């Protein structure tokens, strides 16, 4: 049992994700919305119990006397959640979702629809609606409007409306009971307004909008490659990635939460409600691989727009609109998930220098080129600028992909990604106008990098590439070696590195630590890092060890949450998910692993 579960709370992996591609909610198996930020992923929470405790608000809707949870799943090919409990009076089902397609309709941009049905007999349900805004858990001003049919909770710039059918008078923070009868479902719709008038939406109209939305999601899933291994799992990952893409700007949000802990009760609690160019690049590869070119191009468009003020420097992370995050700070008096404090807002990694990001971005641009998308001149100028930066700065130490604070060193993974950046820039340059002087500079830097990586980044005694120059430790980030074409995937040095990682960073198959535990200067021992396990699947598949890769992939699929979601990390002992949830990087790595297996299995 996790500490949170011991304390009577909800394990992270038991949360379901609801979303509308602008913000997202997390719902526990008891029907309580414990996390919802408005009006965007990175906005202020109105329901924050997840990391803010009971004072931070929640929206509960469940049977008054449940016997147990009968089933809980997303409707196929959609993001609508269906939860059924058994009760003495018969089953009660909660169907819920957020409406994505609001453009062209008089609907608010944030709308959560929840419907209870009791097909076999009247069942009593309990509603607890207790919104609080932001860090101070501010209680709203309460109004009952529209002939008492709408509950309006308002703060200076934000308002929430709650409407029900049949009508029930609801007061925030108070437990209310309703009886759901077989012939009449009970529907609630929550609408949010931020710096705009609140829209009252009839619950029946909201329900119809949700059903229209569901058809839109099914249609979105329909053209995903039908030959993918474990297609259902991959589709869930793609749906999750799409839910975590902020549609107004195309930004990929790393996760919708802040400060879900990497160690229960520990201090490794970070704010992931930002967009990392690295994640955007990995997302481009994942979406391109399954034929979702529009989504891949949207990520590139965000990359180009968001980095405009920093070029040719590539920032580590940005806000959804491409700004630099506000300085990292701790939320006062927030108790954290399972007493894991501090709860942070902002992310201090934004100021780091990470060389590997350039490699991911240029590789994504190359993949787009390979897929037949000729880069616009401006896009190529941007990419070439990034390559120039790499050619000029590759000798400098950097913070590395794991963003360990105060770990400025010569990371081998970063050097490999710098090599990748130059290599891919040279490949793209063959198809786009580039000066000979520039290509000569990149070619020379690439050759120097290769020589230095081969001599300083490889430990002949260990038979493996290592974490940093002179180190004897390995780094799970090196699992990307087979995909770089830096060396033959089946070369002894690559295979030796894979074996060394599996041996040294083993967290109990199929899990891996990302680096030797405890080597990051923070107290406590973090969990196994899930994307690395999926990278291992890909590495094994690409180096010809397909049977091992398939078995590992299947084992990893078994570790998904009951709803097919993944966090960033996993406790190797309890197999509980850790870290911000659900995590886009893990889901993108899963998709790429499936794509690698498909290629490996094809004749």
């Amino acid at each position, binding site marked *: 049992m996790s500490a949170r579960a011991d304390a009577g709370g909800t394990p992270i992996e038991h949360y379901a994700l609801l979303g509308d591609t602008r913000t997202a909610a997390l719902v526990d198996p008891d029907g309580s919305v414990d996390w919802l930020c408005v009006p965007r992923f990175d906005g202020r929470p109105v329901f924050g119990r997840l990391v803010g405790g009971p004072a931070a608000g929640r929206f509960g809707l469940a049977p008054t006397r449940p016997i147990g949870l009968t089933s809980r799943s997303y409707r196929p090919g959609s993001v609508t959640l269906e939860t059924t409990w058994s009760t003495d009076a018969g089953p009660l089902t909660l169907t819920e979702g957020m409406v994505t397609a609001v*453009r062209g309709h008089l609907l608010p941009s944030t709308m959560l629809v929840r419907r209870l049905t009791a097909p076999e007999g009247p069942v009593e349900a309990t509603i607890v609606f207790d919104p609080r805004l932001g860090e101070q858990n501010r209680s709203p001003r309460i109004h009952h409007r529209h002939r008492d049919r709408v509950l309006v909770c308002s703060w200076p710039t934000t308002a929430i409306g709650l409407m029900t059918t049949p009508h029930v008078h609801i007061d925030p923070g108070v437990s209310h009971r309703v009886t759901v009868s077989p012939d009449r479902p009970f529907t609630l719709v929550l609408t949010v307004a931020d710096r705009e008038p609140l829209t009252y939406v009839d619950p029946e109209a909201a329900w119809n909008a949700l059903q229209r939305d569901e058809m839109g999601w099914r249609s979105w899933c329909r053209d995903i490659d039908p030959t993918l291994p474990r297609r259902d799992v991959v589709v869930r990952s793609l749906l999750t990635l799409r839910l975590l893409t902020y549609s107004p700007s195309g930004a990929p949000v790393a996760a919708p939460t802040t400060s879900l802990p990497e160690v229960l009760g520990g201090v490794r609690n970070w704010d992931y409600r930002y967009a990392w160019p690295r994640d955007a690049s990995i997302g481009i590869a994942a979406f391109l691989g399954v034929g979702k070119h529009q989504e891949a191009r949207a990520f590139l468009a965000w990359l180009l727009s968001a980095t405009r003020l920093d070029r040719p420097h590539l920032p580590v992370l940005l806000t959804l609109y491409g700004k630099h995050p506000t300085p990292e700070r701790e939320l006062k008096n927030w108790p954290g998930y399972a007493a894991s404090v501090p709860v942070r807002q902002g992310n201090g990694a934004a100021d780091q220098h990470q060389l590997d990001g350039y490699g991911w971005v240029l590789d994504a641009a190359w993949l787009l080129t390979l897929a037949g998308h000729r880069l616009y001149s401006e896009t190529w100028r941007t990419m070439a600028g990034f390559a120039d930066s790499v050619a000029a700065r590759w000798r400098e130490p950097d913070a590395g992909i794991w963003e360990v604070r105060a770990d400025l060193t010569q990371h081998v993974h970063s050097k490999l990604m710098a090599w990748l950046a130059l290599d891919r820039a040279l490949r793209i340059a063959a198809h786009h106008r580039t000066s000979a002087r520039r290509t000569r500079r990149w070619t020379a830097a690439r050759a120097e990098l290769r020589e230095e990586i081969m001599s300083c980044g490889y430990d002949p005694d260990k038979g493996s590439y290592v974490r940093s120059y002179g180190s004897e430790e390995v780094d799970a980030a090196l699992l990307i070696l087979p995909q770089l074409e830096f060396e033959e995937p089946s070369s002894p040095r690559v295979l030796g590195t894979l074996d060394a990682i599996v041996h040294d960073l083993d967290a109990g198959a199929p899990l891996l630590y990302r680096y030797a535990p405890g080597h990051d200067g923070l107290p406590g021992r973090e969990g196994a890092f899930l994307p690395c396990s999926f990278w291992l699947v890909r590495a094994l598949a690409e180096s010809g060890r397909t049977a091992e890769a398939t078995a590992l992939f299947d084992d990893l699929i078994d570790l998904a949450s009951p709803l097919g979601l993944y966090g960033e990390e996993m406790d190797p002992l309890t197999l509980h998910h850790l870290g911000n949830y659900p995590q886009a990087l893990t889901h993108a790595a899963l998709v790429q692993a499936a794509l690698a297996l498909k290629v490996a299995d094809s004749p």
Partner: protein
Amino acid sequence: MDWAGWALFGLIATTVLTALMICAQLGGLSRLDLPLILGTVVTPDPDRARAAGFVIHLGVGQGFAAGYAACFAVLGQATWWVGALFGALHGAVALMVLVPLLVGVHPRMASNRAGLESTAVLEPPGLLGLNYGAQTPLVTFTAHVAYGTALGMLLSVH
């Protein structure tokens, strides 16, 4: 009204405005790129869009310059400071009214309500264009004041 002045100096003032905004972009102050935004109404290619957008912007600038010339004629004076005042008003209207309205008419610009169905790729400007950087209101306002000042200095009242 000073028609000859309008024909020539409208172009010059709009070019000054555009140049200032491009300088602000190059200086890392704002991501607001008016030629790109206007040009992507007709083409998705950023380079072609900038060329088309510049021409569209010149046309729009000429339209506004006609308004300035008419106002100067009504007031019976065209001075740099009256032009600057008009420019300040123009900048405020552009930031608070014109730029936010683009979301409703631009075929390639997303809105804050964009969802799964959205194929738009240009991010919305947001209130005062703040989505394009914190300095955007200042840059836009200053550029429009410069536009008005230029017209106030160059146009005459006939």
